[in-house]
């Protein structure tokens, strides 16, 4: 009796210690993001946390800076095109992937996620040479291809996960009622995977919006994406405008994650 009471007391200590540890680890995860958002709201002249008074002046400053705004617009445009193109290609590839079976299916799956598994640096270096050879070096189109490639796995994984939820019996029923393959896709499968498709597009957009290394190497002449513009800004002038710029991209990510949660639920997303 006494021993069990002792272990129980010990367990409570362990539990408390574990709770503190977990809390500290989550703080670690969230600290940089919270700090940036805080620093962007400062009324002072320096990047600091906690902020000196509250104001939105550095957001005004951000939108008054042509180079940063141009970067934002370019990132938004490239991200939007990336989202549309990748989700279309990934939808097709996911349908193909699902029809495969056995070892081939596993290899296909691995191949489709390759841009995520191979370091961005290697892909970027390879693309730099390749685009130069096919005379797309330092062009927006070249950069666009790089972003589509790097964001493709996110769309593929999301759509494949959604396709798995569709029971095969539905397809069979639809086919036995005389629907063509295209009709089955458009009227049965597509409506069921739309949330997954949207999630893939959102993840592809966010990923494209955040890419740095590949954009640095494939940077088009006279064009900057927001992360590139932000890096330059951080190196030459360390002002709270940078925190405002970073907060804008954080808000975009949070909006994206929120949207995904609304559409499919985060637990299923990963």
């Amino acid at each position, binding site marked *: 009796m006494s021993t069990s009471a002792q272990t129980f007391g010990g367990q409570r200590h362990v539990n408390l210690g574990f709770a503190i540890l977990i809390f500290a680890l989550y703080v670690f995860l969230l600290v*940089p993001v919270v*700090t940036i958002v805080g620093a962007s709201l400062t009324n002072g002249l320096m990047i600091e946390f906690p902020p000196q008074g509250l104001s939105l002046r550095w957001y005004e400053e951000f939108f008054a800076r042509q180079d940063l705004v141009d970067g934002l617009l370019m990132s938004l445009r490239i991200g939007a095109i990336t989202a549309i193109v990748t989700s279309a290609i990934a939808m097709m590839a996911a349908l*193909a992937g699902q*029809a495969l079976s056995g070892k081939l299916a596993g290899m296909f799956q691995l*191949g489709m996620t390759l841009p995520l598994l191979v*370091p961005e640096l290697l892909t970027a270096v390879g693309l730099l040479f390749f685009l130069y050879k096919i005379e797309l070096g330092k062009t927006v189109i070249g950069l666009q291809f790089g972003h589509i*490639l790097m964001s*493709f796995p996110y769309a593929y994984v999301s759509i494949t996960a959604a396709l798995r939820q569709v029971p095969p019996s539905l397809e069979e029923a639809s086919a036995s009622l005389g629907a063509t393959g295209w009709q089955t896709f458009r009227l049965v499968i597509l409506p069921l995977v739309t949330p997954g498709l949207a999630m893939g597009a959102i*993840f592809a957009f966010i990923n494209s919006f955040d890419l*740095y290394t590949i954009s640095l190497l494939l940077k088009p002449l006279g064009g900057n994406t927001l992360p590139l513009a932000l890096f330059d800004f951080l190196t030459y002038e360390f002002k709270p405008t940078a925190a405002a710029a970073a907060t804008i991209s954080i808000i975009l990510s949070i909006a994206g994650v929120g949207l995904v949660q609304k559409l499919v639920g985060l637990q299923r997303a990963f």
Partner: protein
Amino acid sequence: MMRSKKLIWALALPALLLLFVFMILPITNMVEMSFRTPGSSEPFGDDYTIMHYTRILGDGYYWGVLWRSLTTAGMVTLLCLIVSYPIAWHLSRAKGFKAVFLYACIASPLMTGVLVRNFGWMIVAALNGPLNESLMALGIIERPLRLLFTQSLVILALVHVFVPFMVLPINNALRNIPQSLTEASASMGASRYQVFRDVILPLSFPGIQPGVILVYVLAVAAYVTPALLGGQMVSYMPTLIIGELTGTFQWPFGSALAIVLSCSTVLIVVVFTRLTWKLNERARA
């Protein structure tokens, strides 16, 4: 719906083309580039040579940088595992709204750009930043620490970048362990520590192994973090490579550096997989 093989390949074609033309081909191209002679007006010459490899392998400086990159990534991976395991454990036990909230906390760094997060650490680690202030308030240090542009901060920021990549596979593996198994071993008198050591840890290994490999591979080649937080004093392979490619336009030499780095990484991953193969088999049995 898809009885014909042709249709399957037609659907897969755009994706296969994308991956082949814009990834496989360029990376093979890089291997070829690393054997080119340096160019005078172009970034590379027409002839082939192995001089770039002999230059790298014959120069202690490059060995030093390579060693620093490989060991730093190892340190990052180890710390990342230590930080991620409790989080993954906690996450795998959560249900309902709490689980959604925790997923959001873990996914939010994944969904914010590396540059943005590194910038966050710049503010946190500044001389009069919140980290120094709180350490001084707690009486742990007397004077603010100079953290910016040190290797420690690079490691800290990289751990932060890669935590989600480690948490998610481990979480999946932990979720696959049947609750009844841990209960059974506890009911047979095993202490919590014993249950963890003999049941949970071995069974979660199929999540640990891919997490460790992925984080190591990505950490070795991480560019942004050392470039922003590492300062000018210390070089890592990725900063060196990008410097050769964009600064001095030595494309063949930069490629050779990238290939030396990749081969070393692959070698380490193969050795690691071999060494841990048994552990993985045990978990499957």
